[in-house]
């Protein structure tokens, strides 16, 4: 059963951060302070979203690193290699699906 949990973990984390950032964006746009300008010539809303994106990517990378260790990664074999593949998939997904927070107009 631990194998199955390990297998589902990386992409589940992606799904949670994806939904959380989607929700965060909704909240930011609803309460009208996302347009206030903040440091580095960026809007506050943008800054928060990009930070959340970075956290999500780092979290995903950490998941991969943890699963690479023998202690948490389980015994070598089919399940371990599949789990690692999925951890890489989740890392790519986290970087790719949330890139719009960095480049698009915020709440239009």
């Amino acid at each position, binding site marked *: 059963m631990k194998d199955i949990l390990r297998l589902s973990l990386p992409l589940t984390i992606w799904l949670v951060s994806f939904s959380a950032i989607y929700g965060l964006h909704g909240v930011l746009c609803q309460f009208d302070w996302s347009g206030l300008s903040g440091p580095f010539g960026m809007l506050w809303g943008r800054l928060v979203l990009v930070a959340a994106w970075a956290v999500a990517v780092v979290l995903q990378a950490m998941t991969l690193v943890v699963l690479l260790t023998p202690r948490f990664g389980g015994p070598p074999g089919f399940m371990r290699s599949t789990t690692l593949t999925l951890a890489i998939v989740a890392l790519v997904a986290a970087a*790719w699906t949330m890139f*719009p927070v960095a*480049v*698009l*107009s915020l709440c*239009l």
Partner: protein
Amino acid sequence: MLLGGGTVIFLFVMGLLALALLRRPLGAGGKAGDGDPGRGGSERVWFWGLGLAFPLVTLSLLTVYGVVVGDRLLPRDAPDLVTVQAEARQWQWSFSYADAPGRVTENVLHIPSGRPVDVEITSVDVIHAFWVPRLAGKLDAIPGHVNVLRLQADEPGDYAGQSGEFSGLGYREHLFTLRAHDPAGWAAFLEGRTP
């Protein structure tokens, strides 16, 4: 362009499939296990090359393109912007105008040509959608929400509009006309000289 690219990919995949099928058709007396055992080399081509690299490259280009084009269609601030309101009901459209308060037209939306127009869309009963196919994509009219659609008619004239979201019995006849005026005609409309 989408269609062309899609066709090329389709033909490529089908060609590969045909080749795979006809490469070594089964001779007489063949039985299970006659095929080669899986080899690392071939997996590399099929999965890393065709399964991963090929779709990732085409899709990332396509997505970036779609996202950028979509972003350009957004209702940003513009100096000569005109704002109108569209209110949908079963099965009728009422339009009102920021530049002519109190003016309401039924089933005909008047706009100036050559200027960006924001249509503020809402509904009083069920969900409808505002859609003038020649000018812009569709946007839903949802009770309790106001959605803003940016469009621009470069030429004066009449454009057909319709609801794009199923709304019950009268859905098919839920139509309207968008009338784009030249500057003189628009001024006349605002002064109430044209119906």
